[in-house]
């Protein structure tokens, strides 16, 4: 073979020293140093500010962030520890913020240097499992390659395993996923998400998957007060607001809606607000000759909300 060259390849890494973080700036000594450099604090604060409720989830995220910060400090003292396994499982009812939190986690892990790129690849069964023999493995591998350096978010992961069909290709996808989760921890973080009860059955039939996931996070349902806060934020984000009576009306709406089946937390709130916007639009549309000011265009009135079907059902019930 050839001898070591006397020239340097542009962009090449010195082969001996693993000189990545500690090279240029002086090593961080305190937690504050690491935090200042990674700016993870701002993401955590944003998480607190932007996401209503979800106390257990936020606590766990802070714990994980703390562990990664301390690991950074330990690494500078040569206290090597294996990279922690950060594969997670999010369980919770629809609309409790699983996808939103996954996006934030990717950001946090990226700032702490745990994942290199910090993007999220969101997939479902269709993206992983093929339709004929020999189709699944390349498909799953392609998705995994795309997710490398970031977070792979598998929504409704329990669909991967279909016990009723023993020739289902889902099992093959699970096996490839498991192998990568075990061997390439540094390269990607896998987050499985789904409804609580179905994920429990999924893990019972795939014990290997359950044991490779370190963090099982349960997303609680929102109560009426939290949902109202969420509604306020959604409206503010699209430059709308409730007037005083509309706010009360929406509270009443939430109380009734919570008792009905198929309530999907934040998602239902979003849909209700979208419908209220439609009603506001047609209310304003009907008044042909009125000059509409900024306030009129922004404000949702009580009548926009009280026209909802939820109130109608209720009055029917009482009359019967």
């Amino acid at each position, binding site marked *: 073979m050839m001898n070591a*060259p006397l020239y340097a390849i542009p962009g090449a890494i010195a082969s001996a020293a693993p000189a990545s973080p500690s090279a240029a700036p002086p090593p961080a000594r305190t937690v504050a140093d690491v935090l200042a450099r990674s700016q993870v604090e701002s993401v955590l604060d944003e998480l607190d500010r932007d996401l209503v409720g979800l106390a257990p989830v936020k606590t766990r995220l802070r714990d994980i962030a703390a562990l990664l910060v301390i690991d950074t400090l330990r690494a500078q003292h040569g206290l090597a520890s294996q990279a922690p396994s950060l594969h997670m499982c999010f369980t919770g009812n629809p609309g409790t913020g699983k996808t939103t939190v996954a996006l934030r986690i990717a950001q946090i892990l990226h700032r702490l240097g745990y994942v290199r790129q910090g*993007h999220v690849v969101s997939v479902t069964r269709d993206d992983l499992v093929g339709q004929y023999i020999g189709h699944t493995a390349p498909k799953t591998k392609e998705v995994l390659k795309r997710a490398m*350096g970031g977070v792979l978010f598998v929504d409704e992961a329990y669909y991967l395993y279909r016990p009723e069909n023993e020739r289902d290709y889902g099992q093959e996808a699970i096996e490839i996923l498991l192998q990568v989760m075990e061997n*390439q921890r540094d390269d990607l973080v896998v987050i499985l998400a789904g409804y609580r009860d179905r994920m429990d059955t999924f893990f019972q039939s795939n014990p290997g998957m359950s044991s490779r996931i370190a963090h099982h996070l349960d997303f609680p349902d929102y109560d009426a007060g939290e949902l109202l806060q969420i509604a306020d934020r959604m409206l503010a984000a699209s430059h709308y607001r409730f007037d005083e009576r509309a706010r009360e009306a929406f509270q009443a709406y939430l109380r009734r809606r919570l008792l009905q089946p198929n309530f999907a937390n934040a998602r239902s709130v979003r849909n209700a607000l979208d419908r209220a916007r439609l009603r506001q639009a047609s209310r304003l549309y009907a008044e042909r000759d009125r000059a509409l000011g900024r306030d009129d265009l922004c404000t949702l009135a009580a009548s926009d909300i009280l026209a909802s079907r939820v109130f109608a059902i209720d009055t029917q019930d009482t009359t019967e």
Partner: protein
Amino acid sequence: MMTNPAGRITQGQFSFLPDLTDAEIARQVQYGLERGYAWSVEYTDDPHPRNTYWEMFGMPMFDLRDAAGVLAGLKECRKAFPSHYIRLMAFDASRGVETITMSFIVNRPPSEPGFAVVREEGPGRSMRYTVRGYAADRPEAERYGA
């Protein structure tokens, strides 16, 4: 390249340099990904200069963000073809380019016997030349050892 004093085939980028390490390959790949190139892995055991199209190993990898994905593909290929030539190629899909912009060999057989010039006498005093690899005498997959 017909003759080869170092006993190494020189095709594509970096081929006059010592072999790149995996970390160096990852840096090159990441550079390409950041410019939006799609990488693909190809292999062959017939590295004749006129053999432009090597065998594809899997599909070209579009929409990747991190070099780890490409290296995973490369490792699989090395496992399947340990003593073949393997190269990585970066395809630039942007309009007006739409072609390979980077290409370098990342795996070589342990010994590379090189090429011979074959001379063929034609009518009169004319002479025709061709190049053939010493290893090309043996059948495919047996050319550079197991």
